[in-house]
């Protein structure tokens, strides 16, 4: 049936499907799909992909010309759902602060554009292997976006719910691993395919377990939006604070270059 795939891989595949199903059950039973609808859709689609691809490879074989485009097409769909889920997690992390979130999502979009451009340029040699390269670009963008959100949170001193942080870390680590895995695959194609598949599934299993552990308890409603200050407060105070910071900087500059002061 699946002679091209080793038994260990088949076992891991089954374990992954079981872990995905468990996560889906947890999302349903604990009613966590209400708090994370896009994430739940992603898990559902991913599980569907796993089952479909298993059926596909069973019918046509792992290396058949017909099964690869279909599998990659479905993978692209899951990747889109993944991007949606990441957006949802990012919103959970920062959107309570309307002003900062409005700034953050613009920066994140710019970050995505930059990373995709970078990935495209870095992998420009040869048109072969386009789908894994595209996937790698998207995964790198996802990892960069999540790290950027955490940097925003650190900078503004935002404390997030542990669940949101864990989901984001799960996504980020898996994305980082995917980028590395796909890059090695591109370099050592023939010898690495089996290991690439195995390691990819193992990394995803780790993410699934982390998410399942995180979502083992029902999540309450999302935290309400913070009570905001009137708009005028920022508009009048931010320039003043920046002015003070600039004057502190200027004074420091005078210590640094005293000869300028003395002239």
């Amino acid at each position, binding site marked *: 049936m699946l002679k091209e795939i080793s038994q260990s891989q088949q076992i891991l595949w089954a374990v992954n499907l079981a872990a995905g199903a468990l996560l889906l059950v947890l999302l349903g039973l604990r009613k966590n799909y209400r708090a994370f609808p896009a994430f739940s859709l992603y898990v559902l689609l991913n599980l569907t992909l796993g089952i479909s691809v298993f059926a596909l490879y069973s019918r046509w074989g792992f290396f058949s010309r017909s099964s690869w485009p279909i599998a990659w097409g479905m993978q692209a769909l899951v990747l889109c759902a993944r991007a949606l889920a990441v957006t949802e997690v990012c919103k959970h992390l920062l959107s309570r602060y309307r002003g900062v979130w*409005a700034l953050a999502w613009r920066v994140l979009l710019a970050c995505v554009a930059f990373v995709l451009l970078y990935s495209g340029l870095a992998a420009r040699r040869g048109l072969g292997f386009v789908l894994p390269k595209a996937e790698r670009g998207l995964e790198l963008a996802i990892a960069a976006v999540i790290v950027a959100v955490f940097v925003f949170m650190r900078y503004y001193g935002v404390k997030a719910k542990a669940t949101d942080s864990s989901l984001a870390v799960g996504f980020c680590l898996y994305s980082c691993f995917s980028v*590395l895995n796909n*890059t090695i695959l591109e370099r050592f194609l023939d010898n690495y395919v089996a290991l690439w598949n195995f390691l990819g599934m193992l990394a995803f299993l780790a993410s699934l377990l982390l998410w399942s552990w995180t979502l083992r308890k029902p999540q309450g409603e999302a935290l309400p939006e913070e009570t905001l200050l009137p708009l005028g407060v920022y508009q009048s105070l931010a320039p003043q*604070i*920046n002015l003070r*910071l600039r004057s502190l900087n200027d004074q420091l500059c005078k*210590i640094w270059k005293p000869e300028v002061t003395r002239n």
Partner: protein
Amino acid sequence: MSVTLILFFGPIALLLLALGWTLWKPREGKNLQTDPRWLEERGQRHTTYLPQIRQALAPADYNYLSKRTPRGVQRRVRRERVGIALAYLAALRGDFESLLRMARVIALLSPEVAATREFERLRLIAKFVWRYQIIRWKLLAGFAPMVQLDGLSDLVSGLSVRMEAALNELGERAAAAAELASSMNRRGLGAV
């Protein structure tokens, strides 16, 4: 090692480092402080001992000592003055960080923030941190002449007074704004 490997492994290493840094146990008190009254408590620490510190750094004291005391004592005095200068520098940094914290709280609690202001602040932070470290290293290495230290004393004393006034003013305004916002919210809840 191929170029592609470096081009992708490098960014991933950087991302993982950044992720580790952001998830590193946040220091206590770094979390969002939403009580505006906290702002009013800032800016009063460094002015308390200001007269004593100014006297310690006064050039007249040093001139007097240089004429009447042996070199060993002068060296010790110089060392102690550098220590005081470093403490002042740290105080300056503390003031800078207080302002930053306040700016961050206001930005967080604002319904709209201006990207230009936020990026300008980021640039100021980078400049400040760089200059602060350079001056600190110069002081530690003994490259900074005493004239600079005297300048530093005048600078910090002047700044502390101005900062205190500014921080009080900002704190009062933020508290008044928060009061206004909460009273508006209360009215909104009552209407529902």
